[in-house]
């Protein structure tokens, strides 16, 4: 049992000169964060119930408050207001060491003067575990992470990927209630990152604890998370399963943030015809899918000007529809990305690369899409009208 519950958590960093200097090095922007008399509001109105053994991913652009949130759960950062419960116990003022959580840092933060074994054994040693128990647990964790061969080495004698494994090993040896990870893979190169991502999925099956994982990489978020929390400027934008976030992004930001290439946006009109919702865009008119009809009806959405979002893979070449001209064609292997100009705006679509000579550039095409893949956002609030 290890549920983590955050209730209306808020974090305000008092603005102190020396803090500024410290943080600017990391390229943090405080640009869009709310600044009050007390200081910079890094996180606010953060409420989340994390179930036992759930894998939660916090994702968002740099400076949105992911690390801050994680550090508040870890106890490394004071919670300005709100409540934090772990297993139902009020944790706001409990020291990190008494929270029974473990954390993996972006830059590993291994103890340089200790061997891999000692690094992993350190927390157990502090708990005054017996020699045999320490040995058993360290070897067990090393086995899981496949680092048994390096136990006698110092961190500086390891590669980046191995160091990251050790850092994870150090976190899992004592079977914490929750495992917190702050961008654990961002220091690795692309190939190793993919590999480690798969390892984390496997790891999860083996150690079965609650995970809170911070990343700014949406692929990691989509592949790892049971639920993902999309954040921006200190606010939660959406909490949902990866599928839900992908299929029903709650607002323009989430729609643009999740998915590559980015979702295409058009100015469109939402119309009601015979009790059904239609979108009219660039001369094309598409009836929304039944599921969307119901959601919109339930919200009593009225006819209005909207921002229409369609993902590149959902825009199809058609006989008639939205007219555009191809400007760039990129062969990606099994598929081809076409950059089009539609009414002066850039649009990307993905088409299969099979057949065809690939000489698309300069040609005029028409685009269509299915009513189940159209996302309509309010112009005023930028919210998805389905919600």
């Amino acid at each position: 049992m290890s549920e983590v519950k955050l209730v209306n958590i808020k974090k305000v960093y008092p603005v102190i000169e020396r803090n500024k200097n410290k943080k600017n090095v990391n390229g943090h922007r405080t640009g869009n964060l709310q600044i009050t008399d007390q200081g910079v509001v890094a996180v606010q109105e953060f409420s989340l119930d994390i179930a036992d053994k759930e894998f939660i991913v916090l994702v968002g652009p740099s400076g949105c408050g992911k690390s801050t949130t994680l550090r508040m759960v870890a106890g490394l950062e004071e919670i300005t207001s709100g409540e934090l419960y772990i297993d139902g116990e009020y944790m706001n003022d409990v020291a990190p060491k008494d929270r029974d959580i473990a954390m993996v840092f972006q830059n590993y933060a291994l103890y340089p003067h200790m061997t891999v074994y000692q690094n992993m054994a350190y927390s157990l040693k502090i708990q005054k575990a017996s020699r045999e128990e320490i040995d058993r647990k360290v070897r067990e964790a090393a086995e899981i992470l496949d680092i048994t061969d390096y136990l006698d080495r110092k961190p500086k004698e390891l590669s980046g990927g191995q160091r990251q494994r050790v850092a994870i090993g150090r976190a899992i040896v004592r079977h914490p209630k929750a495992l917190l990870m702050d961008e654990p893979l961002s220091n690795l190169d692309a190939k190793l990152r993919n590999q480690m991502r798969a390892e984390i999925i496997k790891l999860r099956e083996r150690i079965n604890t609650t995970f809170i994982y911070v990343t700014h990489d949406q692929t990691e978020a989509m592949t790892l998370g049971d639920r993902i929390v999309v954040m921006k400027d200190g606010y939660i934008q959406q909490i949902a399963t990866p599928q839900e976030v992908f299929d029903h992004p709650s607002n323009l930001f989430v729609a643009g943030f999740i998915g590559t290439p980015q979702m295409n946006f058009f100015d469109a009109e939402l119309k009601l015809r015979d009790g059904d919702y239609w979108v009219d865009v660039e001369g094309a008119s598409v009836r929304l899918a039944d599921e969307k009809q119901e959601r919109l009806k339930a919200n009593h959405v009225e006819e209005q000007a909207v921002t229409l979002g369609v993902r590149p893979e959902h825009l199809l070449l058609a006989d008639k529809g939205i007219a555009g001209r191809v400007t760039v064609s990129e062969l990606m292997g099994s598929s081809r990305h076409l950059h089009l100009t539609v009414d002066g705006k850039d649009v990307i679509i993905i088409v299969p690369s099979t057949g065809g000579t690939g000489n698309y550039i300069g040609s005029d095409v028409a685009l269509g899409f299915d009513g189940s893949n159209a996302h309509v956002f309010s112009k005023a609030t930028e919210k998805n009208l389905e919600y």
Partner: protein
Amino acid sequence: MTIANSSRSRKAKVQLFILRVLAYLFIGILVAMCLFFFIMLLLMSSKSNSQLQGAFSLKWGGHFLENLHNAWNDASTNIPRGMVNSFIVAMSSALITTYFSALTAYGIHVYEFRFKRAIFTFIMAIMMIPSQVSAVGFIQLAYKFGLTNKLWLLILPGMAAPVVFFYMKQYLESVLPLEMVEAARIDGSSEFRIFNEVVLPIMKPAVAVQMIFSFVSSWNNYFMPSLLLTKPEKRTVPIMIAMLRSADYSKFDMGKVFMFILLAILPVMLVYAVLSKSIIKGVTSGSVKG
């Protein structure tokens, strides 16, 4: 193209070779200059008094062990006692100075608290006050409280060493990522234990450097001990050496005097030899990316 390249690279090699030779020559001269005094001292301490009174020669005198025996067992200058006293003072103050300076530096580096800036400035300001100035008050205090002839009185003030503190702080800033402290906190370590088990080992090179400096300066310190230590059995080596000057040279065995001096610098060299081993660069490399 390739020919031009190879001739150019040969030229570069020759240049590099000449540069190396010059560099080694320069270093060699410096080393010789530094070693000269030690070699002379060693030579002198091997000569008998009469040899020393005679013409100067670079030959080994052959009375080394005799001088050593005489110096060690000298009745008026109790050099073994002095060395023990000096060692107690120098070693303890080196330990105390480095440990507490590192601790202070850690506190200032890692924790956020009110008036941190002010405290830091205050410590730096103390650095500006010459020790002779504060010594006057200190000595008066010592006499008023009747604390003369106490070795610990020479040791304890080492706890507050702004220069060492500053050095330690600079060092910490360059080698200690805060994440490491946080990782240790999450691992369940207490703050004090983090310092002793995680931070101090990382600071080993800095500690070694400062240990050497404090040991040497404390070992050589004449000013404070001469004012505070009056009893013969409490004297430190520098006091004893200084007192040799007032001795009657015509009657005095100069070979013994050189032996005293040799003995006086021996521990310093030993400490240097032992500690310089731990001054290895890059102890933190690999703990943290970047």
